């Protein structure tokens, strides 16, 4: 554990170079499922960030105590516990968001972003780097989900964060709030993101 990681790079990579959604295409299930509005995307992103942060902290703290043959089940138990905690807390204190996210909260458990970071980063790096990594990746995930949600909401419902900017009867692209719209919007946003980030950062 002697190699020094540039923490700024470590933080930024999650947002740009290794953005979990647009570059690594991780965690597609919640990405496609809940982003029918900007607010839902944001809520899901924040919930995921919390679980990712907590699981990275715990995994990095106890990494030497877990025999490598059972590391995956151990990680999953840790992640699942935090997800359940998030679910209970949301239901108790933010019932509105809990209703909106519904089935997708338990599905954070199988979000490969979280397991992926635990396996490929937190189990090999120290506590501080893992926290920075989780924050970077989590914020990258939040940005991606919010942008995707906003795009779909603008096109599909003619509103952003529930604020309407077209009249009540206006015809909007309903396709974009339905599942196929998620794929289409994600694909175009990925292209756009890659184009911009390659031009700007290389």
């Amino acid at each position, binding site marked *: 554990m002697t190699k020094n990681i540039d923490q700024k790079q470590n933080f930024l990579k999650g947002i740009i170079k290794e953005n979990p959604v647009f570059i690594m295409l991780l965690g597609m299930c919640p990405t496609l499922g809940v982003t*029918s*509005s900007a607010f*839902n995307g944001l809520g899901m992103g924040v919930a995921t960030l919390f679980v990712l942060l907590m699981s990275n902290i715990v995994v990095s703290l*106890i*990494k*030497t*105590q*877990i*025999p*490598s*043959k*059972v590391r995956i*089940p*151990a990680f999953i*138990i*840790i992640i*699942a*516990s935090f997800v*359940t*905690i998030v679910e*209970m*807390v949301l*239901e*108790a*204190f933010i*019932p509105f968001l809990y209703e909106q996210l*519904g089935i997708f909260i338990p599905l954070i458990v199988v979000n490969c972003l979280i397991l992926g970071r635990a396996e490929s980063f937190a189990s090999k790096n120290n506590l501080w780097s893992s926290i920075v990594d989780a924050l970077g990746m989590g914020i990258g995930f939040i940005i991606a989900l919010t942008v995707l949600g906003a795009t779909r909401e603008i096109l*599909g*419902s003619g509103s952003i964060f529930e604020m309407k900017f077209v009249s*009540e009867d206006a015809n*909007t692209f*309903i396709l974009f*709030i*339905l599942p196929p719209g998620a794929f289409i919007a994600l694909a175009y946003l990925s292209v756009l993101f890659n184009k911009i980030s390659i031009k700007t950062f290389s």
Partner: protein
Amino acid sequence: MRKKESTFINMVLSLMVITIVAGFSLGFVNDLTKGPKAKAKLERKISALKLVLPEFDNNPVAEKKLIKSDKVKDSIEIYTALLNNEFVGSAVVGSSNKGFSGLIKIMVGFNPDGQIQNIAVLEQKETPGLGTKMKDEKFLKQFRGKDPSSFNLKVTKDGGEVDAITGSTITSRAFGEATQLAYDEFIKNK
């Protein structure tokens, strides 16, 4: 520090410790959130009641009636509202399984003449931006002040008088059905 060897005893022990810690912490959080969870649920019910009923001063939640019905799985809940011990209306929870994505549960408030006071949506899984428009004022306002005995709760496509939501005829149909169910129970248990 070296990684622990993957011996049988190490694997069993480490997994056991992790699961025990996880179990206890979940139990702890569950205890913490139990109260607020029940409170949030109750508050939602009360705010729905306030929305659909005229002014009342009793506690309808404490006096709810449960009616068995063969049309729905759960029993139907009826809340009676009193103001100065006089009957001012009751709220009936109607539901329909014919929504676009399953169950739709609504609370319909009736005044003593059987007119619809207001409707609140309690549970739904409809398509966001389409079926969820049933919560919008534009759709709900056509029900207010109507008496289902003279107002046909079917959508216009099926010969009724309800203006369906554009693109969500199925949702509108289920909504009408749930309202009808609530009305039938209201009449039966007046």
